[in-house]
C-alpha cells in the first residue's frame, strides 16, 4: 500500500491513536484551517456531559429510504444497498434512540450541491440525504444506493474513495462524531489523504463497512454492515464528583 508522504501536525483532539491531527498537509485544505496552539485540557462538567443527542429526533420514517425520498415519486438510479449496524459506546453497550444523519453522492459520484459542478450526471430522484433513529438495541438501517467515486482538486488526478458521510450526537457533547463510512477494497484507499489522516491502520479499518450476505435481500439489495463506536466519558476516569453512567445508558 502506498504511504502518503506528508507533514503531520501535533495538535490532536482526543485519542492520538484514533483521531486525525488537525494538520495533515497532504490534505491541502488542512493547512490554513488547522489550529496550531496547544489545546486546553477541559475537565468535563455538565456542559460537556450533557448534549443535544437525547432530545433531537427531527425525522420521519421515510427519511431512512434514500432511494425514494426525493419527493418526485421516482426511484434513484444505482446499485440498491442496505447499510445497517449498531451504535455502541466504548463498553459495547447499545445507544438507543439516537439520531444518525447521513449524506452522500449519487451513483455517478455527484452531490446535489451548487458547489459540486463536475460532469457526473445528476439524478432527479436522488437527493443523497437521510436520517434515522437507532432502535432499542442501538440498531440503525438505511436503504440507499451505492455512491460513486468522485474527483476533487486536492492533487493531480485525485479521486475520493466511495463513502457515505455520517453525523451522530450520542449521549453527550463528548461523543459528537462526524465521520465517513467506506466500502471494502476501495482502490483509492491508498491514495486518499482524508482516509489516511486517521493515524493507524486499525483505526482506519473501523471506518470500512463489511459486505454481509445475511443483510443482503434476495433480488432486491446488497447488504453492508457497519458498527459505530462513540467515545464517551464512560470508559475514562473523570471527576469523582460525577456518578457512574446512568443505568439507562444516558
Amino acid at each position, binding site marked *: 500500500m502506498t504511504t502518503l508522504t506528508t507533514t503531520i501536525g501535533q495538535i490532536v483532539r482526543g485519542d492520538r491513536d484514533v483521531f486525525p491531527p488537525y494538520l495533515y498537509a497532504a490534505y491541502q485544505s488542512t493547512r490554513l484551517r488547522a489550529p496550531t496552539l496547544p489545546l486546553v485540557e477541559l475537565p468535563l462538567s455538565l456542559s460537556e456531559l450533557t448534549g443535544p443527542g437525547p432530545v433531537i429526533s427531527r425525522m420521519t420514517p421515510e427519511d431512512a429510504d434514500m432511494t425514494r425520498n426525493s419527493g418526485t415519486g421516482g426511484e434513484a438510479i444505482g446499485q440498491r444497498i442496505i447499510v445497517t449496524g449498531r451504535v455502541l459506546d*466504548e463498553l459495547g453497550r447499545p445507544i438507543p434512540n439516537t439520531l444518525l444523519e447521513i449524506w452522500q453522492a449519487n451513483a455517478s459520484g455527484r452531490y446535489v450541491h451548487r458547489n459540486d459542478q463536475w460532469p457526473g450526471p445528476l439524478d432527479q430522484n436522488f437527493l443523497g440525504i437521510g436520517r434515522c433513529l437507532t432502535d432499542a438495541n442501538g440498531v440503525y438501517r438505511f436503504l440507499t444506493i451505492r455512491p460513486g467515486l468522485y474527483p476533487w482538486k486536492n492533487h493531480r488526478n485525485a479521486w475520493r474513495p466511495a463513502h457515505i458521510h455520517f*453525523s451522530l450526537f450520542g449521549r453527550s*457533547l463528548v461523543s459528537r462524531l462526524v465521520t465517513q463510512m467506506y466500502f471494502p477494497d476501495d482502490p483509492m484507499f491508498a491514495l486518499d489523504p482524508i482516509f489516511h489522516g486517521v493515524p493507524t491502520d486499525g483505526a482506519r479499518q473501523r471506518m470500512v463497512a463489511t459486505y454481509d450476505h445475511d443483510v443482503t435481500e434476495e433480488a432486491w439489495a446488497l447488504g453492508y454492515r457497519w458498527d459505530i463506536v*462513540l467515545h464517551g466519558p464512560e470508559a475514562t476516569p473523570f471527576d469523582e464528583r460525577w456518578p457512574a453512567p446512568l443505568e439507562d445508558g444516558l
Partner: protein
Amino acid sequence: MSAPARLGVTPTQTVGPFFAPGLLRDVWNVLATDQTVGERIRIEGRVLDGEGNAVPDALLEIWQANAAGRFNHPRDTRDLPLDPTFGGFGRSGSDTDGVYWFETIKPGPVPFGGSGDDGEVMQAPHISVVVHARGMLNHAQTRLYFADEAANDTDPVLALVPADRRATLLAQRVEAGERAGGSVVYRFDIVLQGRGETVFFNI
C-alpha cells in the same frame, strides 16, 4: 472482576464541503421563541482561516443551558425549571463572507462539577461551540463567554486558559443592528489559525 474490554472508537473524518442539504435542511439557528424565558440575544461572527480569509463552508453547532442554568438532558436532574420552548441546541452554516448567526437566550450559570450542592463552584454563563469545516479532519471544541459578565473573573475554565488568550473566548456586546430585531447582539469571531487563534479545548 476484570475491567470490561473496550471497543475501538470510530475515528472522525471531515464534514466536507457538501453537508448543507443533509445537516441544514431544517432551520436550526433560531433557538428561542417569543415564549422562551430569558434575555434574547443574537450571536454573530465570522469564521476565519490562518490568512484571515473567510471560511465559507464551516458548520457551527452550539449547546447551552436555559436561562435558569438547566440543561435539557436526562443527566441534569437538578431541581431547576426546564423551559418547554427551549432545547438548547443550534446549528448554523457560514456564508460566503464566513458569517454565521444564532438567535437564542443568554444561558444561566451552571456548576463545574454537577452535584448542585450548596458551595459548588459555578461556571460563568457560557455556550459550548463545536466547529466543523472542510479541511478539518476532526471538529474543534470551544466556548463562548460574555465579555460583560462579572462572573468570568471566577470561572474555573477561563482560569485554565492562558491569560493572553482568554479574550478569544469572550463575545463582545455590540449595538443591536436592525436585523437583530431589538435583541442584544454579541459578536464572536472564530479564528482557526494564526494571529488571534481561538482557544480550542481537548475533550
